[in-house]
């Protein structure tokens, strides 16, 4: 196979190469299309991450509450439910099965559903991390908070979660990278993101290798950016004088 990078400058209707590579006046080249697809990928991933962090934190906290069987069970059920079914199947259920029970959901665009599906799927994993982060903190930390008169909520808000999040930043980084990669399932519900672009564009242009290479590069770029941002956050949050944050020793 020979290379043909001109393919990105083609108009996606006439298949003719456009000078300047960007379409004018409503015309769309494959490059335009790919960049907008990248935008969709990033949007899906970031919003899903937001949902995942929110629910993951709540569920993770529920699973560490002292003496409360009910919330513990609920948290466990949440995690097991969302991590033991393949993401693609979950999306299908969100899109085709649940609206059959709640017709109002039919009006929701695929984008919203996929944000929730991916967000909940990821929240199960983040909940695990939040829980283990809280568990690695010395038991005395919770005690100290309570002894000062903090309510349970205050204890998590001011004492446990700030440290737990610092501890779990490395696995959390992996997880945010996973969200970007997993966002590719959004193609299944017609979100015009990178994977959908790749599948469609390679069909139309028959330049699969070039298209997939470019798309892979964009995924790598996203992961890299993501990694740098998390490293920056980790640095900003680093506590002076603290070595081996993971609470080594006692």
């Amino acid at each position, binding site marked *: 196979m020979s290379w043909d990078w001109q393919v990105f400058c083609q108009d996606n209707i006439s298949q003719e190469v456009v000078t300047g590579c960007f379409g004018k006046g409503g015309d769309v080249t494959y490059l335009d299309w790919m960049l907008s697809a990248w935008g969709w990928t990033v949007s899906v991933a970031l919003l899903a991450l937001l949902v995942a962090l929110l629910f993951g934190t709540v569920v993770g906290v529920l699973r560490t509450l002292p003496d409360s069987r009910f919330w513990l069970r609920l948290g466990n059920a949440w995690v*097991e*439910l969302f*991590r*033991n*079914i*393949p*993401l*693609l*199947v*979950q999306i*299908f*259920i969100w899109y*085709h*099965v649940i609206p*059959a*029970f709640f*017709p109002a959901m039919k009006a929701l665009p695929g984008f919203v559903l996929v944000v929730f599906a991916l967000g909940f799927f990821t929240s199960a*994993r983040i909940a*695990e991390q939040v829980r283990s982060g809280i568990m690695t903190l010395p038991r005395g930390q919770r005690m100290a908070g309570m002894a000062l008169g903090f309510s349970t909520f205050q204890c998590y808000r001011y004492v446990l979660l700030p440290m737990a999040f610092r501890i779990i930043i*490395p*696995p959390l980084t*992996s997880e945010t*990278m996973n969200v970007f*990669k*997993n966002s*590719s399932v959004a193609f299944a519900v017609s979100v015009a993101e990178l*994977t959908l672009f790749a599948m469609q564009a390679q069909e139309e242009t028959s330049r699969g*290798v070039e298209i*997939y290479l470019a*798309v*892979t590069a964009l*995924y*790598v770029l*996203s*992961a*890299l950016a993501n*990694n740098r941002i998390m490293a920056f956050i980790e640095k900003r949050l680093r506590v002076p004088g603290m070595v081996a944050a*993971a609470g*080594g*020793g006692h």
Partner: protein
Amino acid sequence: MNLQLDWSFFTWDLFTNFVIKGFYFSVQLTAIATIGGVFFGTLLALMRLSGNKWLMTPATIYVNGMRSIPLVMVILWFFLLVPLLIGKQIGAEASAIITFIAFESAFFSEIMRAGIQSIPRGQVFAGQALGMTYSQNMRLVVLPQAFRNMLPVLLMQTIVLFQDTSLVYAIGAYDMLKGFETAGKNYGRPIEAYLAAAVTYFVLCYSLSTLVKHLHKKIAVIR
């Protein structure tokens, strides 16, 4: 509610025709990739922790590279490029197995690295003080403990791996999810097929994780 489910097509024949073959492949792929991934992942982790620049740099690049590309792309690239490199065709199944081992090694290496780092330095010193060589210390002291500590995380990755085997669709291999999908398509009952897949996956993965939790309790290091 306007969902009428029709399970009439869902016979044992359908199971044996469509699902079992995919199930075998998924399990086989998961098992091989887990074993291979843990083995090579441990090697990569040791390379990254070795303190030797010539071992650390390539291992780090490999691991971070693999972790930033979606698996389906890795599968495709591997499938397309390796035959060009070695000038010989390898089948979809073999290709899937090699790709998964290569990909999972990167993930397991991160897990094992965290596991190794979770072992107090004093344990390493103790092994050394008894006269153990680096490799004896790793084999007898550090890795057995790291592995026990990391079992729950390894399990989680294995469940992900089992679910991810569905991505082999990209190179025309046939896993369990594909089995359900194909059956659903050819009988015009996709909703039922997906629900069945959801239940099957849940039961399998949940049993697996329960099993490993028990196992972990058994072999967990008593502290």
